[in-house]
């Protein structure tokens, strides 16, 4: 059975209608011990079929370890959205439920390289001197979560120093415990910093600055 019903497929196709530049979806999967690999694979296959600008590559997490290392993929199912560059946009766990929206946004932004970031946001990013890793923990039933994921991915697309992951908390319970996720969205910044809730752009930027300053001490 198709993952996307007709109405959703139509909406998605329309959303991805005029992608100016090609986008690669690289998916990492595994036959066993991966609850949602099969569904994730099917989902990206259906998405890739919606636009001639989207190509799909599927890798085995074990057999293609080199590829996984190259793209910094350390858990599965994983999706890397790659445009003219690898902007560091990743999805760990299936982007279903509300996160389907985040997936479409990531594809479109990787193609257009356009973001909704403010002038101040771009300024902030241009002054970054150290790498930033954002991990946005979500559940598929959280309506506020795509805001945080989309923002994190846009920051990654706008800056070569930023990479951003969606992490589906229920599929990676050990990470939820490690990062003390008790509510979503929760954005973990460079392992140490964190933001609770769907924080707006200025607040995320403040927290990034804080985390970077804290790491210096």
């Amino acid at each position, binding site marked *: 059975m198709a993952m996307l019903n007709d109405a959703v497929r139509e909406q998605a196709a329309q959303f991805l209608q005029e992608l100016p530049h090609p986008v690669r979806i690289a998916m990492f999967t595994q036959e066993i011990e991966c609850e949602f690999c099969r569904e994730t694979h099917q989902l990206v296959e259906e998405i890739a079929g919606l636009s001639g600008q989207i190509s799909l590559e599927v890798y085995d997490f074990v057999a293609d370890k080199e590829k996984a290392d190259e793209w910094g993929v350390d858990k599965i199912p994983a999706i890397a959205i790659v445009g003219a560059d690898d902007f560091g946009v990743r999805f760990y766990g299936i982007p279903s439920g509300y996160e389907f929206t985040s997936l479409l946004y990531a594809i479109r932004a990787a193609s257009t390289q356009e973001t909704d970031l403010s002038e101040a946001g771009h300024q902030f990013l241009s002054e970054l001197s150290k790498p930033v890793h954002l991990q946005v923990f979500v559940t598929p*039933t959280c309506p506020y979560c795509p805001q945080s994921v989309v923002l994190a991915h846009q920051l990654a697309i706008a800056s070569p120093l930023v990479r951003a992951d969606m992490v589906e908390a229920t599929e990676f319970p050990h990470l939820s415990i490690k990062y003390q996720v*008790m509510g979503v969205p929760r954005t973990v910044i460079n392992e140490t910093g964190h933001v609770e809730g769907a924080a707006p752009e200025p607040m995320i930027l403040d927290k990034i600055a804080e985390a970077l300053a804290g790491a210096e001490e």
Partner: protein
Amino acid sequence: MDIQPLIVTPVKEHARVPLYDLVIIGGGPAGMTAAIYAGRAALKTLLLLGATPGGQMSNTEMVENFPGFPEGVGGANLAQRMQQQAGRFGAEMLVDTATAVDFSARPFTIRTNSQAYLAKAVIVATGAVPRMLGVPGEGEFFGRGVSTCATCDGFFYRGKKVVVVGGGDSAIDEGIVLTKFADQVTIVHRRDELRATKIYQQRAFANPKIDFAWNSVVEEVLGNEVVTGVRVRNVKTGKPSVIDTDGVFVYIGMVPKTDIFRGQLEMDEWGFIVSDEHRRTNVSGVFVAGDVQDYLYQQVVVAAGSGAIAAMEAEKYLGEYPLSEIETEKQKSEPPGVCEE
């Protein structure tokens, strides 16, 4: 595996401020229903969905009392259906939040983060957001044990203990949802009986995982890195005590979302927008629907109903006061303080 509604994004490329017959602010059941009616009435309609398309429905596990769904319907699913129905009749939809409005002259101006829009008529359907306890620790531990969304965060309380604060439908229903994850759910309620609908009460009383702290109010949320407990006080005896818990879910009612309309639309002392039975506000051409004007019922079906009324009234109003093209052009050439990109 569910795939939820596609969120549409603001398009930033308008060279000038676009004019609509009707701008609906809010994408809950009230706004979506209004958009269905407006679309069918062939009004050029923009629906601003804000940060939570679907509104409160989108974090409601199951809606059992919306007619036409005898088995009940998932809140997110119902939201998705309404959104698709609104789209089908031509309403444009954007995930954009109104940050300021000017209702002092027609066409009205609605400003968002990225853009300004002009409207010959407006429906305000911004709904309501959870009321918070306002006690020490609540803000500090928000997202670290304090939550207002059981459907979002329930998963993290598998095998744990949680407290639900409140005694109405939402508190009891979400308390029952939480028993799917948590081992124990303690409902803290300030009275000695529940306000919730009987069917919810019966289910809660029959659920072995649910217990009650009656006549009790939460005075502090306790914790270090994460929540460890709540300090409560018995309002009858005055006696304080501590309930150990891993999570606190707050369902003590809703507050209307009306800040951006302050000074322009008449409100009651609680901030609900005042309207007549035709959902007309004190500004001619501005209508209101849903929880933002309803402190009494706050139900999906009621919000949808008032959305229909507001849209039908807006259509009638636009027929009577079409706003001539010349007038419109004049207004458009000098939109109040709008910066173009």
